[in-house]
């Protein structure tokens, strides 16, 4: 148990990977207003892996996810899923947003059935699929309710069910629990871990919470402050532990300490450079 430093983009990892990010960088704007959001990033995510990307706000981790989702195009480099170049959003990449992305004018059932409907399934078939995933996230009793009638945590469950209903190859999660209170977040983290174990999905998960990253992931990627690049990556065993209180163990604390120290050194360095400039 614990974490150990690994390289995530070695040729051997890349060879069998599901999702490969190659030299992806992103620059916004032009001329004097140019902002380098992301320095070239290399990443390989294997099938069934749960990779969390943790970093300070503004480090470009959401930009990276948007590129993999196909919402943004990289300035350099490319993202590849199962050997196919990613150029646009697609149903093989399910996205769960932080909040405010549910279709407020549809019931929970219709929200979750949206994907299967969009892929050409009949209404009955789509509802059947949706019912399964609504049950998976424990909202069967609320299928006819509208999102505004649900709590924040329940809304995020709907978002997760909606993304799962298309049975995507990968799940892309952009700080899905950031707006939730601590108790709800911990509960949902346990549930997402259970869902991940059951469905063996490949997951790329953005967060600014180090605990969340350690608790959920098979691999934790630590990013630097803007312009973001990968500072370090760790293989992480806590997500395979059965103990729901694994986050209170000394090994967990030790792992957290390692990453906090890393990020702290990073931000101090960034401040020093700012002072020089």
């Amino acid at each position, binding site marked *: 148990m614990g974490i150990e430093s690994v390289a995530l983009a070695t040729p051997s990892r890349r060879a069998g990977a599901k999702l490969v990010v190659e030299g992806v960088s992103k620059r916004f704007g032009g001329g004097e207003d140019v902002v380098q959001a992301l320095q070239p990033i290399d990443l390989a995510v294997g099938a069934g892996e749960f990779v969390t990307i943790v970093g300070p706000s503004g480090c470009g981790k959401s930009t990276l996810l948007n590129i993999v989702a196909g919402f943004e195009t990289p300035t350099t480099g490319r993202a590849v899923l199962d050997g196919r170049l990613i150029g646009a959003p697609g*149903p093989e990449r*399910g996205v769960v*947003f932080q909040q*405010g*992305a549910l*279709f407020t*004018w549809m019931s929970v059932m219709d929200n979750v059935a*949206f994907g299967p409907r*969009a892929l050409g399934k009949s209404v009955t078939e789509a509802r059947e699929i949706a019912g399964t995933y609504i049950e998976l996230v424990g909202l069967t009793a609320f299928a006819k309710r509208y999102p*505004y009638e649900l709590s924040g945590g329940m809304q995020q469950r709907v978002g997760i069910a909606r993304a799962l209903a298309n049975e995507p190859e990968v799940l892309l999660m952009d700080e899905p629990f950031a707006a939730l209170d601590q108790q709800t977040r911990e509960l949902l983290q346990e549930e997402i871990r259970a869902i991940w174990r059951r469905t063996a999905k490949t997951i790329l998960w953005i967060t600014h919470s180090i605990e969340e990253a350690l608790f959920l992931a098979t691999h934790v990627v630590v990013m630097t402050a803007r312009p973001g690049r990968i500072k370090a990556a760790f293989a992480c065993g806590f997500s395979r532990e059965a103990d729901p209180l694994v986050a209170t163990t000394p090994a967990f604390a030790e792992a957290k300490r390692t990453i906090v120290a890393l990020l702290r050194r990073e931000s101090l360095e960034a401040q020093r450079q700012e002072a020089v400039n």
Partner: protein
Amino acid sequence: MADAVETLTEDLPPARRTARRDRWLGLASFAVMLGVWFAVTGSGLWPPLVQPAFLPSPVTVAKTFWKLANNGYQGHTLAHHFLISLMRFGIAFVVCVIVGVPVGLLMGMHSGVRAALDPPIETTRPIPKLALLPLFIIWFGIGELSKTIVIIAALFPLISISAMQAVRAVSVRRIQAAQSLGASRATIFRRVLLPASLPGIFTGLRVSVGIGVTMLVGAEMVATSDGIAWMALTAADFIQTDIVLVGVLIMAALGYGLDRIFRALETRFVHWAGRD
């Protein structure tokens, strides 16, 4: 989860109580206005504070309404005056909805369409449309067409611009969510952009109902011999203030009634509006 259900149901009784109180307050404010009207005009019980020629009492106005309803005004029944006004407004409004909403949606979705249509709409918007009525009469004659067009001219920019704003305000996240769920452009329009824009479109429609009823007065100012606003305007020439007030109250009731209808439609079809 249980918590959420509890807060949902717990919230209801006080909210309902507030709603009931607000309904009474609304009625009370009507009653106060009516009471003041009774008081200053005397209503036959005491000498009026205001000359009846300036402000007839509610009793007189009610009697006049009854008389008009039975005998009509200037060769037409009161129902005819009311319905012709409603028709002038209704046709203009329906045309604006059928054309203005799609134009606004297109402007919101395509920057090209917006670039082409925004300047004409924005530059003509500040012009008081009533000032154009003489021109419309020269162009379209003294019949119904020029009256309808002057109302259209007033409502069209309102409705199309509110539809444009509504579609532009749709959250990018929701569109991205639909894209990543595999939705085609047509599906995104039909199941995301359109429903998400409905609250904004409804607001535009409600505002334009008020403006449209106001525009009736202008439209029926010249070259007419029927209509509720025309009735009020003609009666004013003869200082028949009781008839003027009947006309004004009917127009107020029309505007209020239409607004209530739209509010009911709003709660029925966009009950989720503003509740993210």
